[in-house]
Each structure stands twice: as C-alpha cells, then as structure tokens.
C-alpha cells in the first residue's frame, strides 16, 4: 500500500492479531445478543488494530526517507573490520553480503552483513524499501550504536539498505 511517496507495509503480526480478534468478534456476536448491541464501537475498534500499526509504519518510514539523504551525504564507506566501539555515533556506509535475516515478519528486520574483513549486525527499526534476502549484495547506511543502547558490541542502526550489483 502506498501513501504519498511512502510504501507502507503492515507486519504479519498486526494482520494475525486483526484476524484473531475478527474471529473472536464474529463468534461472540453470533452467540451473544449483548455483543451484537456493542458492534457499533467494536467494529471500529477492531479496524484500529490495523490502522494504528499502519499509521506507525507510515510515520517511521517517512522519517527514515527524510534522513536517508543526510546519511548518503555524510557517511564514510568503511570495511566492517574498522567498525569498533570508539565509532559509536558515527554515520557509516558498508557493503557486503547478507548472511542472515531475522525478525522480518515483525517489520523490525535485523541482518547479519559480511564483507571480506568480518561481519556485523545491522538493525532496522522499520521495514526496508526493498525486500532483502540472504545472499543479496547490499549497501547499508546507518549509525554505529551499542547493541544494548549503553553497552554491548557495536552494531549498525540502519537507515537505508538497498541491493547493489557488483561488476
């Protein structure tokens, strides 16, 4: 679904929640007249289960779309091995192969990206523009952060991930 220039993706979790509560509502309204009398607000509330995650996704994706050009202009291209704890807060660009993809179904994907010098976790707090899969060659723009905010190994808070073709 596209709102303006932003491609909005609703996570499978939000859809599953909506489906489960729809089933509950149908069963309850068929078996209880009291529930049927409340449908006037129950049905809109049910749709809010879809509308709220969609709105949140739209807001986060439009924010990411706004800051992506800043990162494209400022980030330095580095090999993964050079990323270390002292670089926390720095915008960086890396190129590598996607070795693993986690939590894509939650719209909070986490990738393990590797180049010839090493590998690093890349966390994204919204859905990416492109459907990135294992073995894709990608470029990543983001900021170096600690894995657990104040502690842990350095990871990349991804702002932009896209597939590239290497000649």
């Amino acid at each position, binding site marked *: 679904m596209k709102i303006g220039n932003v491609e909005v993706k609703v996570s499978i979790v939000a859809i599953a929640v909506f489906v489960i509560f729809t089933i509950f509502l149908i069963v309850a309204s068929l078996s209880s007249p009291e529930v049927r009398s409340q449908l006037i607000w129950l049905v809109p509330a049910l749709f809010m289960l879809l509308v709220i995650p969609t709105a949140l996704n739209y807001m986060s994706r439009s924010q990411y779309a706004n800051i992506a050009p800043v990162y494209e202009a400022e980030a*330095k291209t580095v090999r993964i091995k*050079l990323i270390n704890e002292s670089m926390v807060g720095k915008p*960086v*660009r890396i190129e590598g192969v996607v070795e693993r993809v986690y939590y894509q179904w939650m719209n909070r994907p986490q990738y393990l990206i590797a180049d010839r*010098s090493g590998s690093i976790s890349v966390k994204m707090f919204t859905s990416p523009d492109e459907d990135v899969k294992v073995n894709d060659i990608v470029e990543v723009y983001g900021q170096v952060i600690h894995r657990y905010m104040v502690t842990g190994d350095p990871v990349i808070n991804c702002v932009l991930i896209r597939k590239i073709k290497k000649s």
Partner: protein
Amino acid sequence: MAGQISDNPEQEKQAEEMSHRWLELAVPLLSFGGALLAFIILVTNIPLDFRISIFGCVLASWVLAYLAWIRPRKDIVALSTPLYSFIFIAIPTDVFSSVVLEMLYAASLTILLVRLKYRFGTTASTAFRLKELAAPLKTYVVRTSVSCKGISPERGHSAAVIFVRFAEGNYGEAARESGTAAGQLEDTGTGTCLTRAFKIVREHAALLDKSLPLPQTFLTFPPEDADLLAKPVSGSPEKDHEFYTTLDNALLLLFSAAWNNSEKDRTHLLACEAFAQKLLSSA
C-alpha cells in the same frame, strides 16, 4: 594499593581471579543455602520468619549480576536477575511454595552462571585495572619495544593520537596528523619504519575520508621491515589483501610506538585495545 598493583601485577591478577572464583561459588551457595534454610523452617517449625531465606536468592542474584557486569560482553539475562529477585520479596507466599520457588530459582541462577562462564568469556577488569594489554597484542608490543625505543615521547604521543582518531573514524584528522608526524620524523632522520607507518596511515585515512576506492598503486613496507610487522604480507596475488594488511601493520606499529613511548596515553590506548586486537587477529 595502586602502588602494590603496579609492583606485582601477576600476584594482583591471581588474587582477583581467586576473588572471582569465590564469587562464582557464592551464587549456588547463597541461593541453595536460602532454599535449604526455608526447607529447615518448613520441617522443623522453628519460630523464624521463612521470608529471611529469600535473601539468599536476592544476594546470589546481585553477585551474578556483578559477575556479568565485569565481563566485556554483557549478558542481559544475568544482569537483570536482581530485578527478578525483588519479585520474590514483593509476592507474598507460604513456606512450601517458597521452598519450591527458591529451589527452582537457585537452579536457574546456577544454570545462568554456567552460561555466563562459557558463553560470555572471562572478566575484563583485571587487565584494565592493571593497565596491561592482553595477548596476542601484548606479545607484539613487547616484541617491537626495542625497535620503538629511540622514538621521542612527542612522536609516541602523535602515534597514540593518530591511532585513537583512526579508531574513532575521524579519518580527516588522522590523515592530517599523520602527515605532520611523518614530516617531523623525516626531519630528525629517526624511525624510518615508523615514518613509513605514518605515511601509510595518512594514505589510507585520506582515502577513507573521501570514501575513495582502492588505488592502483599504494605505499607498502619494504622487506627489511618484515620483522617489525604484526602480520605477514605474503606474496598474495590479491592486491586488496596486501593493501588492507599493510594498513593493519601500520596501525599496529603506531599502537606499539605509542604504548612504548607515551605512557600517559596508555589509558586511551586501552580504550581502543579491542580494535587493535581485532586488527591483529583478523585474516
């Protein structure tokens, strides 16, 4: 105390390892001890509030969290155990439930302790507090100490600043500083190998600062410097491997020169030790 540490670091290290071993032992002892006390209260009906036994688990949780905190890799599960131990105090229960809960909790803490030891490595506090490097970086720094001895403390400080700036990703600054340091060393005619290391770092930092690709030609160390280098630059047919290994060697040589000639910068170098270790151990 600080004097004693620097006088006999090995002894201090052993003492600290011993205290960590006692703390590790305290986790099952305190937690299972608390559960045992609750069991004794249950079977003997002695006039003692059974809730006192809960403090065994609470203390064990804090000890486990401390052991997790002093490791370089933090275990978020072990760190959060004190929070769960307060749930023990907050939720009122009877003696029998308390015995069962404490037994299960003590078993969980023991499993977490084993997990912490095997999955989250050794503690970092000793090396940091003793101002010591860990192997294999220490071995390299000791090996090159004789060759780095003739360098002035000012150049040692420059090497430290450049290494730290490079680790932080401030490549523009690192390139400028290395250019200046290389020029000054050339003027004095000392440390030929170090001069080359400064020049190599300048070349790489300038390329990184502008996100430029690998150049057609680049600076390398001459074969006579091979003994001073941390990693062998074998006759690899891959140009990029040689290019990046040369940078690793140059940075590690700066680290060694800084460590051996600028003692006041060691705290900053220790903060970047993980980066230096990564350079040394990577392929």
